[in-house]
């Protein structure tokens, strides 16, 4: 994965804006930002971002590749779409944030311990396995993400909610063993594999 990274650096010779335009979802919008800051002011999690969206766009233009790609900021996006609605230049900011996060992940330089990233991985593994989310196993994996002790703690904290869900038939405790996926899970996995290949080929990640 770091090899991909090296390849990209070589390919774009430090022209990070061009790299983003070519590889990041909706990346060709980055140049259109006019630095008004409405996105930063609109973000409900704005205070939690180290670099608000318009600053990330500026960093891309200034060629700050490492700083952007290893940043946790774009992982903070909750897809509320407030910024997209408000952006006077109509930039698809939410998509760009996810695009950047995804690109950093693909290059293998995304922030390793970022909880959003870890959750996303768990979720993806969960859903791609059977074609349907196994909520119980997803929750358990999420609780035990940081180890057994904190997993048990979180489990106990959420016990009331869990029992309530079981009582009202919203959660099947047997799902751990009896989770039913879609009919053709093999077909799904073949499709995903192919899609991956196509994308890798198009963006030049794979040989």
């Amino acid at each position, binding site marked *: 994965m770091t090899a991909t990274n090296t390849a990209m650096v070589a390919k774009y010779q430090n022209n990070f804006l061009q790299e983003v335009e070519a590889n990041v979802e909706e990346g060709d919008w980055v140049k259109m930002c006019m630095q008004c800051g409405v996105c930063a002011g609109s973000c409900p999690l704005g205070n939690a971002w180290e670099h608000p969206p318009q600053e990330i766009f500026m960093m891309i233009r*200034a060629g700050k590749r490492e700083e952007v790609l290893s940043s946790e900021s774009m992982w903070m996006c909750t897809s509320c779409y407030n910024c997209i609605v408000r952006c006077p230049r109509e930039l698809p900011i939410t998509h760009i944030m996810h695009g950047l996060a995804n690109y950093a992940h693909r290059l293998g330089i995304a922030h390793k311990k970022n909880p959003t990233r870890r959750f996303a991985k768990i979720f993806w593994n969960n859903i791609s396995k059977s074609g349907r989310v196994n909520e119980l196993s997803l929750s358990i994996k999420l609780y035990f993400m940081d180890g057994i002790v904190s997993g048990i703690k979180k489990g106990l904290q959420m016990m009331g909610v869990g029992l309530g869900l079981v009582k009202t038939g919203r959660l099947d405790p047997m799902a751990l063993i009896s989770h039913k996926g879609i009919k053709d899970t093999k077909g799904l996995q073949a499709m995903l594999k192919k899609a991956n290949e196509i994308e890798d080929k198009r963006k030049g990640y794979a040989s």
Partner: protein
Amino acid sequence: MADEKKIAAYICQGCGLGDRLDTSELAKVAEKEGKAAIVREHAFLCNADGVATIQKDIDSEGVTHVCVAACSRRAKTEAFGFDKVAVSRANLREGVIWSQPNTDDAKELTQDMAADYIRMGCAEVSFMKAPDTNPNHGSNKRILVVGGGITGMTAALEVAQTGYDVLLVEKDAQLGGQAAKLHKRQPNHEPYADPQDTGISEMIAAIEAEAKITVSLNAHITRTSGAPGQFSVDISTESGSTQTENVGAIIQASGFTPYDASKLDYLGYGKGADIVDQMGLEELARKANGKGITRPSDGQEIKKVVFVQCAGQRSEKDGELAYCSGHCCNTSIKQAMYFKDANPEVDTTILYTDLRTPGNGEDFYRSAQRKGVIFAKGQVSEVDANGNGAKVKFKDLILDDDVEIDADLVVLATGQVANSGVDIDEVPQNEPGQWEVSVDSILNMDYRQGKDMPHLRHGFQDSHFICFPYETRRTGIYTCGPVRRPMDMVQASEDATGAALKAIQAVENAELGRAAHPRSGDLSYPEFRKEGCTQCKRCTVECPFGAIDEDEKRYPKFNESRCRRCGTCMGACPVRVISFENYSIDTVGQQIKAVSMPDEFEEKPRILALACENDAYPALDMAGMNRLQYSAFVRAIPVRCLGSVSTSWITDAMNSGYDGVVLMGCKHGDDYQCHFVKGSELANTRMSKIGDTLEQLDLEGERVATHEVAITDIQRVPELINEMAAKVEELGMNPFKDF
């Protein structure tokens, strides 16, 4: 004349006046105290029958002076506009019944107020004359355009297409001005995406094809004298010949000079060939003519260009420009496109602190972003010539970083400096009989106040930018384009059409002997009694429009056609020899005297309000319309401008027992709103000295208050009056009442 004078007063009962006021009592007042020969009450004076009644009296009863006691003078002006007779208006509606409470308790004071306004209206009209046309008017309708750049050429074409003759004077050997030096211009039509041809050569061809336009190249104006409708202008060409031309109005489109970038030491201009200003880049672009622009120092390919916005502009540094020149952001965008359009691989960065793209520049800006021009918010601190190319040091204001970048070419966006001629505050006019031509002057006016128009803020020649565009402080001379304020080509062309229209209005008004803006259409003009003049020169110095010169014997010489009829000279004159037929020391002074003055023990004080007719008086009217109430002891008199207020009115008022005086004029100072530019400021200066006079009378200085009032101060105007009423109550009555 006294024999022929016949005053008639008409009292309206409409709009509730008949219900609120005892009009028959008012009629008696008009007859006995107002000396009206005919007094009529009418249920609805402004209807056809009411107007016909008045007209009939004028036609068959020999009425020469009409006092209409109805609504404000600002209402029903057409109905009550009678020709050839003097007309005054007693404001009983907005000024009395609408501003006073409709209660039984208030009835007496309301009636008092109305009666006083009747007395005042009759007194005023009795000292008025129906204004006659200014006899010294000229009827030349040719229009002189000074400057053959895009502004001047647009103005010339607009004027010619409207059907007037034009004389276009250009100092250079060809038309086109600064615009002719450009490679391309920023777009002025959809989709506002790419630079486009300047269109200057087409424009020059249009000028040459227009029979009504005469062009004079290589020419300077060496003398301007006269007035609207009758200017006489000496035009000297480089060859040394001088021709005298007569014109009716002048459009000054003298444009701008690019700021001298070599003053910007820290930005490296002049230290290396690869640091240029915007005009310098235009020259490079014209040479390259669509092919790639190469590095001036060594002719190598350019890979990176940096544009430095606000170079020596919007700056507080000494010698730099404090203002934004308005076009430079769009110009840099355009110039970055010169590079991007020739070769998209060229790296172009625009360093700005605030990007300003007026008009449709926003689309142009977006187009540049699409083409890959990089915009970075950064404050440039230094540009160093660096062998070939240059190093730019700046602070990235978004990322809070100190950055250095190397560029092959640096373009400095410097600003526009107005070509305003000589600063008349610095360069005094020649003494009479010792005329000398100034080579720096644009117009070389022989006006007493100086050779060019006064420089306003930052050396531009503008009047108030919102209220009075194109108007200058010299009647019949209009400025447009970058001499008025910094602007781009689109704005300059628009400006030119506005000034063209103003100039046409000026010559048409001049032919009829009427005033120009803002008393447009006024037929009165200043007259002065030479025998009484002490040659103190106050009028010639204080006239905001430089209308008054001095004759050989040093008496003031009124150029009536240059006059705007503000009456500032009248207010200035210490011996009160200046007057207008329908506005004089007497027409106001007699109103002040006509008010009945209750004695000290009646507890009915009297407050005089002198309100500027342009802003304060309309605000008072609107207060009435909104039924905002104010003290019933006030008696308001509209004045043409606070500058026309004679201090004698104030001293007379205080001497005759008024308890307080409120003066309401427009805002003065740098961002003035005075319709006559300096009037309210001069009044303020004069009134600051009124305290001494009051002290001599042993009266408190607080009895006279001067306020700046805007037309929107509808809520505030009644408060100002009530404030004075409260002050009077606090100070007690004026002891001069019984004398």
